[in-house]
């Protein structure tokens, strides 16, 4: 079946069997490999993308359900010149990632979280990250990153950055 939607601001059409999940359409048909598959069963959150402005687990959505939708993947979060979104910058600044595999889903969830629950407390952020698993960071610096990135999003001021190696 042919499914048309908008991905990262550009129209896209996918010709895929109806039982294709959105994540496979994104990875295998559109070759946007930043969205990852960690479990296939909507438990780890590595496949999180935005659909019509809300975070969804793309391993649990059939491609047909996305017809006409506005999809944003991790590739569409930074500015066109490559400047990172405040949440991406905060993850880097706070060392909120190690192996990087859960990171795209974590960032997409974090942006959604801070958009819809701005200035959440640490414990609220921990609860709201329930849908995303990370095996490397112990979540310590992810929580700090979400706080910092959320503050930057709410205030419109960029994340203060430290020197990079």
């Amino acid at each position, binding site marked *: 079946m042919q499914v048309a939607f908008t991905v990262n601001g550009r129209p896209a059409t996918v010709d895929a069997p109806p039982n294709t999940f959105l994540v496979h359409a994104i990875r295998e048909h559109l070759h946007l490999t930043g969205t990852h598959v960690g479990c296939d069963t909507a438990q780890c959150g590595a496949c999180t993308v935005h659909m019509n402005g809300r975070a969804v687990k793309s391993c649990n959505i059939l491609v047909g359900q996305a017809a006409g939708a506005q999809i944003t993947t991790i590739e569409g979060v930074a500015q066109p010149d490559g400047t990172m979104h405040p949440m991406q910058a905060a993850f880097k600044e706070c060392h909120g990632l190690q*192996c990087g595999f859960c990171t795209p889903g974590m960032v997409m969830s974090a942006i959604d979280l801070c958009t819809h629950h701005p200035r959440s407390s640490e414990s609220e952020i921990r609860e709201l990250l329930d849908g995303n698993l990370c095996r490397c960071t*112990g979540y310590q610096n992810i929580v700090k990153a979400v706080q910092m990135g959320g503050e930057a999003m709410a205030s419109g001021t960029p994340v203060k950055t430290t020197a990079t190696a």
Partner: protein
Amino acid sequence: MGASDFSNLPHIGEALRRKEDYRFLTGAGNYTDDITLANQSHAVFVRSPHAHAVIKSVDTAEALKMPGVVGIFSGKDIEGKMGGLPCGWLINNPDGTPMKEPMHPILAINKVRYVGDHVAMVVAETVEQAKNAAEAVVVDYDVLPAVVSVADAAKKASGVTLHDEAPDNQCYKWTLGDKAAVDAVFATAAHVTKLDLVNNRLIPNPIEPRVAIGSYSRGTDDYTLYVSNQNPHVERLLMTAFVLGLPEHKVRVIAPDVGGGFGSKIFLYAEDVCLTWAAKQLNRNIKWTAERSECFLSDAHGRDHVSHAEMALDKDGKFLAMRVHTDANLGAYLSTFSTAVPTILYATLLAGQYTTPQIYVEVDAWFTNTAPVDAYRGAGRPEATYLLERLVSRCAWKMNLGQDEIRKRNFITTFPYQTPVALQYDTGDFHACMDKARVLADVDGYAQRKSASEAAGKLRGMGYSSYIEACGIAPSNIAGALGARAGLFECGEIRVHPTGSVTVFTGSHSHGQGHETTFAQVVAARLGIPVDNVDVVHGDTGRVPFGMGTYGSRSISVGGAAIMKALDKIETKAKKIAAHLMEASDADIEFANGEFTVKGTDKKIPFGQVALTAYVPHNYPLDKLEPGLNETAFYDPTNFTFPGGTYICEVEVDKQTGEVRVDRFTAVDDFGTIINPMIVEGQVHGGLVQGIGQALLENCVYDNETGQLLTGSFMDYAMPRAADFPQFKLDTVCTPCTHNPLGTKGCGEAGAIGSPPAVINAVLDALAPLGVKDFDMPASASRVWEAMQKGSGSAARDSQPQEPSLSASTQGRPVP
């Protein structure tokens, strides 16, 4: 350059943000599953649904006719054509006979031995087609009874034999120490404390599943294996030399960005070999991506020990002797380093931070109808630390001493220190870690917090753990004498480019550890050039000269030391070039901050000019010196490194539900020199959560009768989530390692090693008023609640006989 000079260089100790982050944060990482090759097909494995069965037949006739099928292979296709997966560590029995080492075929031959065992590989044009065809493969099984827990294996209760080579299912017995001397001490000791415990089985679960692409070029007869793996050179060595009999120069292994390993991606797996071999048979590139359920079933698991331990003490609480018996579950086959984990990497750590003069350890290792068990973050050292630190706290409680006091009375204070279990600690300051941890944990305020908890209807407990680990494995010759079948050095190459930038090639592999940043800091610091001018290449046998890979917290101490040695060579040669340019003698050249100077003069030239001269050698001593500035070094350590520290955990237990909440966790570690404190903290965070996860949440459970994996998904296996933890309090103490040029000790596993006993000691401390004296991990709400109901009933543990007992085992049994 010595370690103290090194630690004073610019960038050393600086929390620079990571080079690798931009690509990971923008979706530009390059993980194995992101790679698509031309002419690529897809593999799906037919796996055994039975824990133990005879394969009567595998019928692929119908499956081969299915749409898109390219080929199907089963045991009969590989039998006699290749070897089995090798085990990298030989353990001998006390009588000198070798361990039992049955064949580990890459596709099951005649028999399956665990649920998830590989029976056939189906290759088709798409994953969907391969899955459909896999369902059409008809396997006729004759189901056999299964043996699952080490308790059953040890008791031979089932009368079941997995491998003909090991009729009683025992792989080996192994001992360390002087039994007679230990027994003699116990006979006269003022106090003896005993403990039975289970170190629960874990499933590593990196978030990136295992993935591999086998690729073959008929034009050149070359193979390339892309694989999510922690040590590509070892993967190639084992696969070519032991399984496929291929020359190494015809096989390239690439481990690109890898989404976490934690040990589970050290090993050579059947899938990797199968894909590589079949790529030539089918003349196709073949990709396989594990589903999460396959990770649960077939990634090597961790831990799974059942132990009995005893400590003899004098009247003042000084440890006199310890004896330990451990039954270790190796699973159905020997995974790559499985045999070393419950022996060399375990028993040698049982002295811990203490002066215990005599230790005797006995290990029985068993085959069972479960997935292979191998190294998982810490590998043997968490098992040793959990046993020792539980035992030490129990000694404290029995003797009415504080958990800190009993530790301080027994700490080693002089170095180097030779333990009775083979290791020689080079340095450490255990009192400093303890003192710092107590301050950071606000132990003085504990009584007040406990009262507040009580007022709120909660039980509060505090637990200590003072761990030591042996990292930076290891001197190759000593490891070889202990049974290692591989070297344990590391290789580094420094390629200085004509314009002065540098590419570093390292045999270490980064799968989250941030080597691209840390190693660049090391090189930039030594050469006095901007960190931006240094890039690090790893994970490709086609680009890196050689490597032993990343595990055992060895990367900076062994891989980094190899880079330091290569830098020494670079500096030596560059000084000769500088001497020529400045018309001085080699001996008068000094190098600092990126400049070569002539002693006692104001003559100087920058590093970049020397680099350019090396490649444009117009004014150059060509009669004495080769052009170019590119050096390779191999570094073989002279000893292990010994990170250590003290962890203090405070928990609150809900009296109504048994729910345990970690309220505070304090970790003070001694990692020696720290190059990037931000990265080190991150490593500790991750380790702590895996360790606390083991203590509170995670538990791999097989059905004890059928051998079915009951915790086979993220719904059944409790992975730690963000809300399960508070922010941790971390600090460090620094006694630099004395025998490597950086003074580093390694930090990747500490958290997972030190934390489980701190948590369980805290839980036991909290539950003490209810008479609960013993508890096996994980302290999930239902298990804690159950223990609270039984209360003093379990206090009978202390009256158990001295002989090793397996009665404590809950391993392999469903949680009631």
